């Protein structure tokens, strides 16, 4: 090698090396959960946008919704992974292509010939027993699956532009307990991926997925799995026992945490942070609750379905020597099925294409008399199906419609969420993946809020106004997602900091949510407001900020612009840290109220909002926790 080559190489790599200081990490926003027309359900919902279109959308280009309107992002994303369902990957497009063998199958012709929405649903229903492996599978053609997977990988490689836009390779492992108890997770690869994805058709037991990931990692292809919609898991996502019902042990905890460092806290099908029944003292717990098992009207058991409770269970298992299988960080994603995430309440298109394409179909806009009659017939027909078919018995019946005049649909409880945030050294596959492994991640309910948290001993309040805050905090403390080794007799310090989304409402408050396990093994939680908008101070008796009088006019959706904060930051010391008690701490930053998408739909259609739906929403951001370890 000549000296010149060496010099060039040194010059090329010098800027990269210089960026490796943790204080230079940047908050990158992205999408880690997205379905294109290659997912069996998305194609049936009318989506014809492939992975290339999905990446173009992420980079800021407008693409078309199945019903014809344009979808475009307010601000382009920094990174994205296309995550189509691995089972039946690419099969439905092949069924619609009459040159393939599979298109001759009666299920395929049923799908192709479906004209109306209800025929579409019927044809979809005919396919479900195949995907649920309840009948002998003469549909699946693995050659189609493998070549589709290759196309997906190539599309990601085409769009990956290190430093500017990162396209990651991934897919969804769509598992469940017996039927609809959602155990779905997305598998994301650090770089390249193997020739065939591990799907539920191979095994529904997630432990086998993790073992496969271990083996693929040993071949040099690292990956992580991110579970989602624990809210619809009927308690199975964060259970006390394994998939087969065996007690959880240390080996299980290690296997799980090695492969699942993150969980999706919020997405279009609801938010899984906490259920108000579990945390009656959390005034902000009733947020975008989606109470059903996925694709059914069957209620999902609360216990074992929500994240805060899982964190507490994890600490309890750890105390019993079982390891902590629930020591995961947080992230959000959209789970859109139209190749384009809807993140803004005022520009919402939900996720299942033709099925929920407008305010009426989403139950947000009042129906006319004729539409009401049609809806009634549809409802009666559904009752009949539900009462007379096995499939129907499993999916259950809708409760009594609390808002006659509006369609009653599961997707009324869905929302314009969520967005992934990572603190990465650079915008590259490796840096983003490594940040996910470190759990230095956060999730939002849609807006581009940024949040930081550090914990340590001797972190000082005056650093908050120091331009070197982040550098000092990294030197003396640990960031979100990390463990803090407890020092006996001392209470840890926290520095928390959040900024608003310039395109959404200002911030109202910043909270620290703490959970811990006492000497008797009992779990507790407490929520502390730590910074209030408008310079107000936290009331000592309640640990809450005073009301900042932010209001929304639900007739126009205009909101207060004169109250609220552009950024909030605080130094906080745990007033209740007890020696020997392990704990977790995470930040929740809350915006002033704005209109929920359903109210926007109603305002635009000049309709009354659906009285059974929340009219306003307080968008929020959640950081990964820091765990205090003794």
């Amino acid at each position, binding site marked *: 090698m000549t000296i010149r080559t060496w010099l060039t190489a040194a010059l090329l790599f010098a800027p990269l090396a210089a960026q490796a200081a943790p204080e230079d990490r940047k908050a990158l926003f992205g999408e880690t959960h997205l379905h294109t027309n290659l997912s069996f359900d998305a194609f049936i919902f009318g989506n014809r946008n492939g992975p290339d279109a999905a990446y173009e959308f992420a980079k800021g280009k407008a693409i078309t919704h199945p019903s014809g309107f344009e979808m475009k992002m307010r601000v382009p994303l920094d990174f994205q992974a296309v995550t189509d369902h691995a089972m039946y990957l690419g099969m439905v497009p092949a069924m619609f292509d009459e040159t393939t063998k599979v298109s001759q199958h009666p299920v395929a012709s049923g799908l192709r010939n479906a004209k109306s929405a209800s025929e579409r649903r019927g044809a979809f229903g005919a396919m479900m027993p195949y995907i649920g492996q309840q009948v002998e599978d003469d549909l699946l053609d693995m050659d189609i699956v493998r070549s589709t997977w290759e196309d997906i990988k190539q599309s990601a490689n085409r769009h990956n532009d290190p430093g500017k836009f990162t396209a990651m390779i991934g897919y969804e492992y769509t598992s469940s307990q017996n039927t609809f108890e959602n155990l779905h997770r997305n598998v994301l690869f650090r770089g390249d991926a193997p020739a065939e994805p591990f799907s539920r058709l191979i095994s529904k037991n997630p432990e086998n997925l993790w073992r496969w990931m271990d083996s693929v990692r040993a071949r040099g292809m690292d990956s992580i799995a991110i579970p989602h919609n624990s809210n619809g898991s009927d308690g199975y996502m964060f259970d006390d026992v394994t998939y087969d019902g065996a007690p959880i042990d240390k080996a299980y905890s290690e296997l799980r945490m090695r492969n699942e460092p993150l969980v999706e806290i919020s997405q279009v099908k609801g938010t899984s942070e906490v259920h108000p029944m579990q945390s009656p003292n959390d005034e902000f717990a009733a947020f975008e609750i989606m109470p059903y098992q996925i694709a059914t009207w069957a209620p999902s058991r609360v216990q074992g379905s929500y994240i805060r409770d899982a964190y507490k269970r994890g600490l309890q298992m750890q105390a019993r020597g079982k390891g902590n299988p629930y020591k995961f960080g947080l992230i959000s994603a959209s789970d859109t099925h139209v190749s384009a995430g809807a993140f803004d309440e005022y520009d919402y298109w939900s996720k299942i294409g033709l099925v929920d394409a407008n305010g009426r179909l989403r139950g947000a806009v009042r129906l006319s008399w004729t539409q009401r009659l049609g809806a009634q017939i549809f409802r009666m027909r559904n009752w009949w199906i539900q009462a007379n078919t096995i499939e129907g018995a499993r999916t259950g019946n809708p409760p009594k419609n609390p808002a006659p005049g509006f369609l009653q649909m599961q997707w009324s409880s869905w929302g314009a969420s969520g967005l992934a945030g990572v603190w990465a050294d650079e915008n590259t596959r490796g840096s983003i993946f490594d940040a996910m492994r470190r759990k230095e991640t956060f999730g939002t309910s849609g807006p581009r809020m940024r949040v930081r948290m550090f914990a340590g001993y001797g972190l000082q309040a005056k650093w908050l106004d120091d*331009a070197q805050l*982040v550098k000092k905090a990294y030197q003396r403390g640990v960031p979100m997602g990390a463990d803090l080794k407890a020092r006996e007799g001392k209470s840890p310090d926290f520095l928390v900091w959040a900024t608003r989304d*310039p395109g959404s409402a200002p911030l109202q408050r910043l909270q620290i949510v703490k959970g811990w396990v006492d000497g008797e093994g009992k779990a507790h939680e407490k929520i502390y407001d730590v910074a209030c908008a408008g310079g107000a101070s936290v009331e000592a008796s309640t640990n809450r900020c005073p009301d900042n009088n932010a209001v929304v006019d639900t007739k126009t959706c205009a909101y207060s612009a004169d109250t609220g904060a552009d950024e909030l930051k605080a130094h906080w010391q745990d007033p209740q840290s007890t020696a020997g008690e392990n704990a977790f701490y995470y930040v929740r930053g809350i915006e002033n109220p704005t209109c929920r998408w359903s109210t926007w739909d109603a305002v635009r259609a000049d309709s009354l909002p659906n009285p059974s739906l929340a009219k306003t929403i307080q968008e929020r951001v959640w950081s990964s926790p820091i765990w205090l370890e003794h």
Partner: protein
Amino acid sequence: MKQKLGSLLRDRLVWFVALGLGLFAIDYASERRLENRILIDLPLVEKLVAQWEGQTKRRPNAQELDALVEGYIREEILVREARRLGLDDEDVIIRRRLAQKVEFFLDENNPPELPDKAGLQKWFEQNRAAYDTPVKLTWRHIYASDEAEARALLTRVQGMEAKNWRSLGQPFMLNRAYTSQDQLEMSQIMGADFAATMFDGKTATPANGWVGPVRSAYGWHLVAVDTRYEIRAARFEAIAEKLARDWANEQARVAKLEAWRELRAGYEIELVPVEAP
């Protein structure tokens, strides 16, 4: 009765008609046979063998060759039967495929020829603006908690050694310095008003040093523009290759449109009126 039949057989006209029908039947049958003949000749076999070789990288043995030919015969018969039954008429896939092939011809028939340098240069002159690089700024900022603090910081930063600017002001969650950023990128991060002020070419310039305060979506900032990259007019030589590519694409597009117009003009489209109810 017997007599009647006998007289009929004696009638020449009947014989004539019967003979005619017979000839007609023979002719029909032989035509059918011709139509139902499948020719297997050497060029065809060579083609089948070449396809086989392409996939397997070896020549077929005798048995495999038989199977290839038999497979061809089977396909050919099924295709002919399908055509005879008119199955190709209403088939969406076949219609689409046929249409695609003609579209393909429209492209193929008009391969764009590269213009000479003068022609390309002329085209470049006409489309200049699309190739210019927009104004970009390399800039830094100091974030203050309010307007008053920002004013106070301005005197401090102007009086101190230039390299120490990072020690001033409040910490900022996003970057404190950005390299060659255009106005759209800046407004997406800092808000449109802030970006408009920064790009007005008067407030913040390299000559002005630290100026402000300027309001962003997050609060008040002192700003310094280190470099302002004015609109960089594209140079013909530097982008000649891209220009040639774009030019060719454009010519192809226009030619295809023209060819389509010609085709369309050859057809009369008749709208069938809907009767009023």
